[in-house]
C-alpha cells in the first residue's frame, strides 16, 4: 500500500473475478480507477471502437477482432457483471464462427468456446456439442477443460476417459496433455489413498458440516448465486491448485473435499445404515399403505384420496383461521423488468417468465436456422444486413454503420494527405471536427 495506485486495488480485491490467465496489474489499476464515468469515458470510447471494428473489419482474420475485444473486456471489467456484457459477447463470437471450418481448431476460437462453456449452466452439454461439431477436437485445451468439468462433478472415470479421447485424436500440444493427465491421475489416486486411510478411523460426521475454504457450486445462470445449503453436494469436489503430486496435502480428514466412489465400501455401507437408526416415533398414518382389512374387491367403492391423504368421506377440516405461510420460492418468481415503479407506470405488465433458454440452445437454434436458410426452407428473409447490426454487445442502426464507413473514409483520406490518421469511431466528434 505504498503508492496511491495500490490502494484502489487493495480496497476492491473482493470485486475482482478470477481469470484463468491472471490479470494485467496495470489494466486492473486503470479499470479500478476509472469507474463512475460518463458515456464519454475512455472505456466507452474503446468499446465503441471495438464495436465498430467488428462491423467494418474487412481483413481475412475476423476472429482476431473478437479475440481482442473479449480479452479487453475481461481485463477492463474485473467485476464481471452486466456492463461488460461478457456473456453476450462470448455467445455472439462463438455463434458467429460456428460455420467457419478454418477456425474450428484455432486455439483462440477454442479458448472462446471454453470460456463460453464455463458461462453456461451446463458446461458438459456444450463440450459434447463442440465435439459433435468438431470444434477443438485437435486442441489439448479443449480436452483439459472438459476433463476438469467432469472432475468438478466428481466423475473421475469420465474425466480420465476424456484424456483417452484426446490421445486418440492426437490433440496438440501433446506435452501439455500428458502433464495434465498425470496431474489428474495423481489427484485421483491421492484421494483414493486418503479415503482408505480415513476408513480405518471413520468418525463420519453425522451432520453434514460446512467445509472451510471450499468452493461452492453456483446455482442458476449467474455465477454469483451461492447455494443456501453449503454442505454436501453444493461443494465443488476439487482442489484445483494442487496439481503436482508432490504438493503437500492440505485437506485434512474432517475437511476433505474429494470423495472417491469406492464400490466395496458402498456395498457395505448400504444395508448397515438402515439398521443404525431405530424409529423414534411410529411412522405417520399417511405413510401406511394397507390399512384396510382384506375383503371383497368387487362392489367396493374406492374412497377418493386427496393429495394430503385424507379421504374425501371424512368431514372437511375447518378452515384454518391463520394464513398458511408459503415459501416464496414455491412459486416461480415472475420476472419483472428492472426498476419499474408501479405508481408511476402501469403500462408495462410484469414480464412473463420466458421458457427456459440456455445459451447453448440458442446457439443450436441459430445453427438450425442457418442450415434451413441455406437449404432455402426459410419462410421469411430479412432484407438488410442483420448480422452486422446485431454483432457485438450492442446493436447498431443503419445510420451508425454508415457513419462508421464515412469516418473510416475520412480517416483514410486524411492519412493519404499526410495528416495524422485519426481512428474512425474513437472520437466521432473529434474526427469530424478535424476536417
Amino acid at each position, binding site marked *: 500500500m505504498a503508492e496511491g495506485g495500490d490502494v484502489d486495488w487493495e480496497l476492491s480485491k473482493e470485486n475482482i473475478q478470477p481469470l484463468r490467465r491472471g490479470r494485467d496489474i496495470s489494466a486492473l489499476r486503470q479499470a479500478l480507477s476509472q469507474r463512475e464515468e460518463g458515456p464519454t469515458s475512455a472505456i466507452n470510447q474503446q468499446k465503441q471502437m471495438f464495436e465498430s471494428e467488428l462491423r467494418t473489419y474487412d481483413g481475412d482474420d475476423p476472429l482476431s477482432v473478437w479475440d481482442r475485444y473479449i480479452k479487453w473486456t475481461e481485463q477492463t471489467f474485473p467485476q464481471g457483471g452486466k456492463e461488460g456484457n461478457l456473456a453476450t459477447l462470448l455467445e455472439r463470437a462463438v455463434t458467429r464462427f460456428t460455420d467457419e471450418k478454418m477456425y474450428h481448431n484455432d486455439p483462440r476460437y477454442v479458448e472462446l468456446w471454453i470460456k463460453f462453456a464455463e458461462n453456461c449452466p451446463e458446461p458438459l452439454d456444450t463440450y459434447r456439442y463442440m465435439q459433435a461439431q468438431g470444434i477443438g477436437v485437435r486442441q489439448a485445451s479443449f480436452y483439459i477443460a472438459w476433463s476438469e468439468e467432469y472432475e468438478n462433478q466428481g466423475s473421475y472415470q469420465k474425466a480420465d476417459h476424456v484424456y483417452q479421447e484426446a490421445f486418440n485424436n492426437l490433440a496438440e500440444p501433446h506435452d501439455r496433455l500428458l502433464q495434465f493427465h498425470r496431474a489428474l491421475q495423481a489427484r485421483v489416486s491421492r484421494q483414493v489413498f486418503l479415503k482408505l486411510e480415513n476408513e480405518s478411523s471413520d468418525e463420519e460426521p453425522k451432520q453434514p458440516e460446512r467445509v472451510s475454504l471450499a468452493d461452492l457450486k453456483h446455482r442458476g445462470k449467474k455465477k454469483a448465486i451461492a447455494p443456501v445449503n453449503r454442505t454436501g453436494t453444493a461443494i465443488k469436489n476439487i482442489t484445483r491448485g494442487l496439481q503436482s503430486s508432490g504438493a503437500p496435502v492440505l485437506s485434512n480428514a474432517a475437511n476433505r473435499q474429494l470423495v472417491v466412489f469406492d464400490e466395496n465400501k458402498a456395498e457395505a455401507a448400504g444395508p448397515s445404515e438402515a439398521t443404525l437408526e431405530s424409529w423414534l416415533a411410529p411412522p405417520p398414518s399417511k405413510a401406511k399403505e394397507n390399512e384396510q382389512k382384506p375383503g371383497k374387491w368387487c362392489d367396493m367403492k374406492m374412497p377418493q384420496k386427496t393429495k394430503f391423504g385424507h379421504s374425501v368421506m371424512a368431514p372437511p377440516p375447518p378452515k384454518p383461521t391463520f394464513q398458511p405461510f408459503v415459501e416464496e420460492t414455491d412459486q416461480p418468481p415472475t420476472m419483472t423488468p428492472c426498476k419499474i415503479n408501479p405508481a408511476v407506470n402501469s403500462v408495462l405488465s410484469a414480464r412473463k417468465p420466458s421458457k427456459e433458454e440456455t445459451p447453448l440452445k440458442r446457439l443450436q437454434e441459430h445453427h438450425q436456422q442457418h442450415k434451413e436458410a441455406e437449404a432455402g426452407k*426459410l419462410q421469411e428473409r430479412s432484407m438488410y*444486413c442483420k448480422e452486422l447490426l446485431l454483432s457485438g454487445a450492442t446493436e447498431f*442502426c443503419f445510420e451508425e454503420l*454508415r*457513419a462508421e464507413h464515412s469516418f473510416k473514409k475520412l480517416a483514410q483520406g486524411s492519412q493519404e494527405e499526410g495528416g495524422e490518421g485519426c481512428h474512425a469511431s474513437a472520437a466521432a466528434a473529434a474526427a*469530424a471536427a478535424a476536417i
Partner: protein
Amino acid sequence: MTGCNEYKLNQGPEDGISAVKFSPSTAHFLLVSSWDCTVRLFDVGGNSMRLKYQHAAPVLDCAFYDPTHSWSGGLDAKLKTHDLNTDQDTIVGTHDAPIRCVEYCPEVNVMVTGSWDRSVRLWDPRTPCNAGTFTQPDKVYTLSVAGDRLIVGTAGRRVLVWDLRNMGYVQQRRESSLKYQTRCIRAFPNKQGYVLSSIEGRVAVEYLDPSQEVQKKKYAFKCHRLKEEGIENVYPVNAISFHSIHNTFATGGSDGFVNIWDPFNKKRLCQFHRYPTSIASLAFSNDGTMLAIASSYMFEKGDISHPEDAIFIRQVTDAETKPKST
C-alpha cells in the same frame, strides 16, 4: 414514372437523404438534410433550391423552429441553427456523439435533440442555449413530440415517455411491443398516442394513456413485405408521417413503397407506386395536401451500387388520406 400529381425535386442532395421536413406555416418550403453534409431549403412550388448550408459532417436530421429558422445536427455532434432569411449560421451546442434527431416542441417552445451519446438535450430557441441534458438508457434512435410530451425510442427496443414540462423523471418506461429494432416513432397529431415502426416489416399503434381500457386498443400489423418465389422478404420500415388533419399516416419502407393507413378502422387507404429505392424519410405538409417522399438507399445491405437518391413531391387527395366513414 411520375404522373401529373407527382414530380421530382431538382438540385437534390448528392448523397443519401436523411430527413425531409415541411415548413410549419406553408406547404411551399421543404427542408432537406443529407449525408452530403448539407441542409437545403427547397421552394416546392417553384421546384428550385432556395439555399443550402454546410455542416462539417453528414447531417442526420433537421427541423424548423419557425418559418425562418432551421435547426440541424449530425455526425459532427454539433447543433446548428440557421437563419433562412439572412443565411447565417450559429452553433448552439454539442453532444458527445453524433446527433440523430432534432425536433421542435411548439407547446413548450423548446428544441429537442437526441443523440447516440445516450442523451436527450433541450435547447431554448430564443437565446439560443442549452436547457438541460437528460440521460437515456441507450443510444437514441428516434424521437417525437406529442403536445408537451416527448416520446423517445432508443436502441435495445426501449421507449421512454417524458413530460417536457417536468423533466425530473421519466413519465413512462416501455419496451417496444415489436420484437426488432425500432426505426421510427411518430406521435398522433391528436396527441393520444404514437406509431412505432420496426426494422422487420411491422408497425405498432400505441396509446399514451396508461389506463386499461385505452391500452386494450393498441395493436400492431405487418407491412412492407414482398413475397418472392414463396419466400417472404421482410423490409425495414424507415419512415412515418402523420396527416395533421385526418390523423391517418404514411409509412415508407426499404421495399420502396409508401402506404397510407387509417389507424381507426385498421385499414390501408392506398399504396403508391414503387419508388426507385428505400424510402428514407416522409413528410406531409402542414395542410395535408402534399407528401414529400425521400427515396434514398440507406446502406441496408452495405456499401453497394444503388439507384440515385431523389425527393418526390406528391399531391395527395382526400380519397387517399381520409378515413372511410362507415
